[in-house]
């Protein structure tokens, strides 16, 4: 173990430069964010991820945000275990009928000010699952959405770009 830790100390870090905050995301947020809320939170947001019916592809890429290449926590963004601790709900999936109530209750359990970020094409409008008897079709059909990050699944870089846009706006 000592050898591995020592190597990590002398090697250059794997962590990469962040992408620019996504311009389209900034524009979407500009219309929605409340000035007062931004001032209160500063540059630190706690994120609670909610899978509302995803195929788990989005979860894999959200997980990747924590790896050494993307290192989400350096931006003051971190994942928390409870909606009670969260500022942001990161929601994936076409919102299945069976998850609708759980999503609503998670939203209500999150204290304000809060933001909802819908991740992936399914969370945007149901994606390939749109029209199913078992899907509501898009997160905005259930809770208000502040930002969409598209992709199937969005890459960690795209996720980072979207979240950084949220961070910049929440700090303005």
């Amino acid at each position, binding site marked *: 173990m000592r050898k591995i830790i020592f190597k990590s100390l002398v090697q250059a870090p794997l962590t990469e430069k962040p992408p620019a905050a996504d311009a389209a995301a900034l524009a979407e947020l500009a219309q929605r964010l409340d000035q007062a809320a931004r001032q209160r939170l500063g540059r630190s947001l706690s994120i609670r991820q909610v899978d509302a019916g995803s195929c788990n592809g989005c979860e894999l890429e959200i997980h990747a945000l924590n790896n050494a290449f993307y290192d989400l926590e350096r931006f003051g963004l971190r*994942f928390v275990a409870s909606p009670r601790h969260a500022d942001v709900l990161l929601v994936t999936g*076409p919102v299945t*009928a069976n998850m609708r109530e759980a999503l609503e209750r998670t939203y209500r359990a999150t204290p304000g000010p809060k933001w909802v970020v819908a991740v992936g094409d399914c969370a945007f409008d149901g994606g390939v699952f749109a029209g199913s008897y078992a899907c509501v079709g898009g997160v905005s059909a259930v809770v208000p959405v502040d930002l969409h990050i598209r992709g199937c699944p969005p890459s960690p870089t795209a996720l980072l770009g979207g979240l950084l846009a949220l961070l910049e706006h929440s700090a303005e």
Partner: protein
Amino acid sequence: MPTLSEVMGQGRPVQGHRPWPRAVVPGEVWISTAERLKDGRWTLLGLWGERNAVHMAVLDESRREAGVVSLEVLAGRFPSVGQFHPPAIRLERTIKDLFGLEPEGAPDARPWLDHGRWGLRAPLGIKAAVEATGDAYAFLAAEGESLHQIPVGPVHAGIIEPGHFRFTASGETVVRLEERLGYVHKGIESLIAGADPARAARLAGRTSGDSTVAYALAFAQAVEAAAEIAVPARAVHLRGLMAELERLANHFGDIGAVCNDAAFALMHAHCGVLREQVLRAADACFGHRLMMDRVVPGGVAADLAPEGAARLRDLTRTIHARFPELVDLYDNTASLKDRTVGTGILAPALARQFGCGGFVGRASGRAFDARKTPGYAPYGDLRFETPHLEAGDVNARVWVRVVEVKQSVALVEQILDRLPGGPVRAVDDAWRPERAGEGLALVEGFRGDILAWLRLGGGGVVERCHLRDPSWFQWPLLEAAIEGNIVADFPLCNKSFNCSYSGHDL
């Protein structure tokens, strides 16, 4: 004892079902097949419904024979397989939820995927509208002095999929775990019914995102069997490359995550780096990090990028250089092994009874590997071994993954050594089946064997498709493995199984 083909000979063979036979059998043959599963002679591969039929896929491992027995014209009911063979119980509850067919004599009459939220009953059978107010669910009783219950989920504390776990504990010790799943049911089988093959392939590839290559491959193989499409040799090998890259990425993720759940973050960080390097190589070679929609009926959608082979050689060199020291780190950290050795033991007899595949089955003595039995190209020409252990604990499930990583790296190298040239696709996205046919495929995903069965209609569409995730035969065993362990070890046990919620819930 009659063989599987002799038993199927007692029914009417179905024309155009490939590559293994299907027969419509009388009720008594259906029941005797279920009894044969109970005896442990045969393995249940799948059990699924249609509006007026039920099908059971069975494997005779010793003779390497597979087949599908079917019951037709049911009058709304069929003899329960679950009354003889418990692994069928949840599959039958699903048949009742989706098709409205009643398994007669079934030991558990509760719904499974249907939570009363769809606004209709039997969405794939004779639909009936109901109010989507949600049904109450009766959890099994666990009674005794000073027992308490802990409900967990569907929204969990980590970045994972939703499901509900009901623990009954005596102090710290789990007396009973009962799972309730179905939260991510998306209605995939209903969306595929009537879809053209290209759209159906996209849906199949999103049954469980972590196994998107394996699902797309199972679906494509079933289509190719049904329509008798020959896949070009280069495409077969590229599929093998993608499948092994997917296995590597998932195993790295899992090995790290299991250690993380034992509070050993260093392994998690280093395995996370290896996983990311696999995904980046996949992106560079095939144009998508998870390789979604790259395996398609008739071949592959994208040829290997020009610099792809060199990129993959770099990747295997990196793994050779980095992985052994991580394995040493795992093996020589006593505090970590203290958490994984002897924790969450799955008895080999249960793994066998459930026909449990993947690392869960292999860690409990069941060496089944669909790449070998029944087997498919390109694996017949490649050298690899299927590791198996008997201990059945978290450590064994980690260790099987470790050996599989080495095997997959060797497979990637072998495929690169012999990658043939030529076309990569026999038919394109505009292809529509001209005649009816049925296909069955069994593909080894990273977590076990995925079964795909489908019927192509003459009208150019997929009439009916069933996809059975390996998790169907692993989730019930997690309930058994956790018994007698402490509640705090549940995340560790759960991660070592790493069952799919989405693949199971469909």
